[in-house]
């Protein structure tokens, strides 16, 4: 509680500081000369690429640029990344910039903001080109909500034809890419062009700040809406040479719910039209040199999986026990071991650290709640986790084979995880190798005392009568 309060205070103060800094160069002084937005609706993970050319027309330099999102989108926002473009044409490079949620005092209709910190403040009359990339999850609403086996899945996507921004935008265009050519309906905000798999909104000129023009696109999307409601990844480090990973999945098909009958004969004989929105394969990308892979659920092994390995990656193709139709759920566990030397290193100050991938290994899935538990070996001290994005973390203790003091577990929790979060994180800890010998020593001494007791028993006469 206290920590949270302090965090909030700090946030408020920083916002105030920011405001005082920006007091003069308020949003009105910045404007966007040109904006281009590309929305990719091909899968259920919506990727939006936004190119903004920002100009400073005010007097004072600006070091922050605000991105505005409607409140409905903020809840589904998984990732926001921004980069500044440096150089022209062929020598173009991207410099990643920090993006932080920020609050503004007079945000209309609960608009939420993210502020992009520029590397160097934008001076008067200067301009910068920003590439913003963000991911929305759970933003395709199936309609009709329930479909039968032979129907294909139609979804709504809601957004604004005009980019929501606290700055005036001189010229803007939005391209929306749909998975197929079949678009049932879309809101027209002239000029709007529908050609093939693409919808083009714009160009619109001279939009004042906070312009908003809601659009609804109703289109066919039969891509697997694979959502992992809860994923717990346990990474257990053994200094005897292996890291064991156990992943508990609760998978659900988050698309339009299946209604009525499921006919196997139709599913098997007419795969092209029957159950098009369902899926039965999922691909998991595992680290290279993975061994002892298993795939099971609470009632035993699931015999339908294939493992392909090469030197750079391993691919595990898994099939749930039954094809997943809309609303159907499945739970399963994937476990595997990887060699210790691939992931555990010693830092220059003598601490060990684990370097492991954070996100979910399944391809094209959203994880609503991801918990990563790093089980450190018994006797390790002072664990600290370094994760490149904000996560909740705390420590636990677990007991495994013949533990006495228990193992420290670093628990990292994050909500709304997408494949873009599959980047390495580190857990640093101190470990004395002598602890590795504790358990063999315990076993040896137990056997020693057992045999001693046997010898003693054989040489003691306990009978009352001599």
């Amino acid at each position, binding site marked *: 509680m206290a920590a949270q309060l302090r965090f909030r205070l700090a946030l408020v103060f920083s916002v105030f500081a920011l405001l005082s800094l920006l007091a003069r160069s308020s949003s009105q002084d910045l404007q966007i000369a040109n904006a281009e937005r590309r929305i990719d609706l091909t899968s259920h993970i919506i990727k939006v690429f936004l190119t903004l050319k920002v100009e400073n027309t005010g007097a004072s330099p600006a070091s922050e640029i605000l991105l505005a999102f409607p409140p409905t989108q903020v809840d589904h926002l998984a990732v926001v990344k921004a980069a500044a473009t440096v150089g022209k044409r062929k020598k173009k490079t991207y410099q990643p910039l920090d993006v932080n949620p920020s609050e503004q005092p007079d945000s209309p209709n609960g608009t939420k903001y993210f502020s992009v910190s520029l590397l160097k403040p934008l001076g008067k009359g200067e301009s910068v080109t920003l590439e913003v990339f963000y991911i929305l999850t759970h933003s395709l609403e199936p309609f009709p909500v329930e479909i039968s086996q032979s129907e294909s899945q139609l979804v709504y996507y809601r957004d604004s034809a005009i980019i929501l921004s606290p700055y005036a935008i001189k010229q803007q265009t939005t391209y929306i890419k749909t998975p197929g050519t079949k678009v049932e309906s879309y809101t027209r905000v002239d000029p709007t062009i529908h050609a093939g798999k693409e919808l083009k909104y714009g160009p619109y000129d001279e939009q004042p700040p906070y312009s908003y023009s809601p659009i609804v696109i109703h289109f066919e999307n039969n891509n697997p809406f694979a959502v992992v409601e809860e994923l717990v990844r346990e990474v257990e480090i053994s200094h005897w040479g292996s890291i064991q990973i156990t992943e508990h999945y609760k998978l659900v098909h988050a698309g339009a719910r299946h209604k*009525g*009958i*499921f*006919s*196997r*004969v139709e599913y*098997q*004989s007419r795969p092209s039209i029957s159950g098009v929105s369902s899926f039965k394969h999922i691909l998991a990308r595992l680290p290279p040199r993975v061994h002892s892979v298993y795939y099971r*659920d609470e*009632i*035993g*092994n*699931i*015999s*339908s999986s294939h493992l392909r390995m090469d030197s750079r990656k391993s691919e595990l193709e898994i099939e749930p*026990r*039954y094809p997943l139709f809309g*609303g*159907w*759920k*499945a*739970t399963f566990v994937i476990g595997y071991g990887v060699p210790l030397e691939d992931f555990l290193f010693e830092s220059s100050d003598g601490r060990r650290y684990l370097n492991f991938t954070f996100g979910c290994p399944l391809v094209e899935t959203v994880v609503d709640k991801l918990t990563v538990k790093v089980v450190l070996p018994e006797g390790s001290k002072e664990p600290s986790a370094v994760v490149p994005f904000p996560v909740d973390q705390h420590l636990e203790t677990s*007991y*495994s*084979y*013949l*533990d*006495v003091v228990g193992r420290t577990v670093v628990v990292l929790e994050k909500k709304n995880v997408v494949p873009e979060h599959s980047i390495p994180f580190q857990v640093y800890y101190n470990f004395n190798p002598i602890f590795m010998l504790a358990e063999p020593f315990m076993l040896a001494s137990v056997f020693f005392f057992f045999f001693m007791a046997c010898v003693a028993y054989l040489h003691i006469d306990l009978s009352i009568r001599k």
Partner: protein
Amino acid sequence: MAASEDSNESKIRTVFGSVLSLFILILIGVLAFSIRLFSVIKYESVIHEFDPYFNYRVTQFLTKNGIYDFWNWFDDRTWYPLGRVIGGTVYPGLTLTAGSIWWLLNSLNIPLSVETVCVFTAPIFSANAAWATYLLTKEVKGTGAGLTAAALLAMVPSYISRSVAGSYDNEAVAIFALIFTFYLYIKTLNTGSLFYATLNAITYFYMVCSWGGYTFIINLIPMHVLLCIVTGRYSSRLYIAYAPLVVLGTLLAALVPVVGFNAVMTSEHFASFLVFIIIHVVALVYYIKGILSPKMFKVAVTLVVSVGLVVCCAVVAVLIALVASSPTKGWSGRSLSLLDPTYASKYIPIIASVSEHQPPTWPSYFMDINVLAFLVPAGIVACFLPLSDASSFVVLYIVTSVYFSGVMVRLMLVLAPAACILSGIALSEAFDVLTRSIKFQLPGLSENSQIDAGDTTSSSVVTQNDAAKTNKNEDTLKERPSRKTRKKEKEHVEKTSIKSQIKKRLLVLPLEASIAAIFLLVLLGAFYVVHCVWAAAEAYSAPSIVLTSHSHDGLHVFDDFREAYAWLRHNTEVDDKVASWWDYGYQTTAMANRTVIVDNNTWNNTHIATVGTAMSSPEKAAWEIFNSLDVKYVLVVFGGLVGYPSDDINKFLWMVRIGGGVFPHIREPDYLRDGQYRIDSQATPTMLNCLMYKLSYFRFVETDGKGFDRVRRTEIGKKYFKLTHFEEVFTTHHWMVRIYKLKPPKNRIRVKTKKSKSKASSTTSSKRSGKRKKNPWQ
């Protein structure tokens, strides 16, 4: 031959022998454990079949909620809407055993799952059973016979069939408890020690906890006691072996909730009390005989007999009246079908419908006990040379168990240990005689070369070494226990040992004949080992919930059962009720976690008959029955597409029989054409319109255009039909499990509202009576 040297040498021999037998025992334990792991290696570490799933579920509950909640557990997931008191109706031995193993491992921070512990409980207890067999046979005929019997039991196919890894059933621990109880009884009989008598009562308690087969013990031991008394072998040791067992054992047995007062009320236990009275009378007679002069004794006998007869008649009359007043004469159905093998098929179709309650065929004897069947007679003969209390017990054990195994296939399991013990004795004695005659004719051959000669094959090492060792240690072994026992026995044993030594000289076979006989016996043993390994690997390791088949393009796995159960588990509401034939009840509750109407604990015949009636009724009537039971899903097993023979269509006649037994409007002849059960175009209309037929073959014709059933090897009779009251909600990949949902009663309500509109003044009572008419099964 200096006496000191000789004793020194024999001491070294004894130590060497006991260390060797210890190692052999450890190896036998390893063998017993590892031969049962074929199922884990070939398939996976998973619970097998039907009943083990229930035991597994109970164990899960026990480990999660603790022992007190376990005793009070009322299970509302089964026998809906009746439920079942699990704590009071289950033999808790197995569950408590696995639960304590799990608890112990977890308190040592060894995080094994409950499932793993359950899977490996049976192999662990098979090793224990092998060691118990060693102890028992050792009490009867010495170490050599003990080791041979233990090795035989470790891999007897009959026992393997019930105790492969994953076969988590009562029998797995019960056979160990059975043998160990017998061992302690014989041990008490041989030593006359109250300590062993108490232990015996405690193991008997464990046996009562574990398996309903404990009645075999409580009838066999009294029979043996009676036999000893009749043959004039009464001794105080017999009294100590028997009386505490009955008193303590009955008291302890009454503590088990599922037994309770049955331990004194039912006829299964009467024999033990009768013999308890007899042994006291005999003891009294012996006592009086000791203190009275022969003349006085005669007078006393006439007095007592005349008075005693009157009292006995009165008591017997009361007992008979009591017994006759109960409908089954105080015997439970299963016990009655043991005494009268035709009882079940006549009166209780539900017992008769279970394949393991059928009488076995001759090949199944060969399959399950193999060469032991030929060795047993030799063992019986060996038991009579000389006949002791212990060996007479073993003979009695084999005779009764042969009878019981002839009644029920399942009880082959009780026969297997007896067959192993007697075959062990036979083999050991045969090797004893043969090696001795070789030794006698080759005086130059030292013991070393004999041991070398024994190292021919791995299987022969054990047996030959045993034989050689028993031969060597014969005298010391015979003397050691005698030292501890009373003088009488000492004299007796010494006499017999001297006698046998004299006999040994005489029992000499020609050299060539004995070598050939040893070779043949080793061959026989090798054949047994090969057969056991084959049986363990091929015949008895299939978990039956996952099937495999070898085809030209490799191994094909049929995992349809778990596919269906997993689907039910994740995609139906938690409180939905699933109806299926009772075979799948345990699996549905354990794997799908859904409420079932009937399950493998067939305690309520009417309920099962209701489901049977529904399955054999036309669709509308079936819908009404199921709806009255709140059923939401109906699960049928159908093997017609892939040729899985034990599906519901093949079990269907039992549904008709059991259903017809309670609801007479279901008549078996309606489903048979000229006495033949068929589903092709010649089938009766009743058959082609019943629910089971429709649910099994719904849209089946669309798979190949003809509707060819691979199990029945025929085209189905009715190919195109629609379901009006059920809808298909799930069918597994190979069509082996099909799940249907009951359609909501839309049409009926509309009709009713119309009716009520037209007859606005109809009273509620008439409506109710109308409903009752429609559904006689409520």
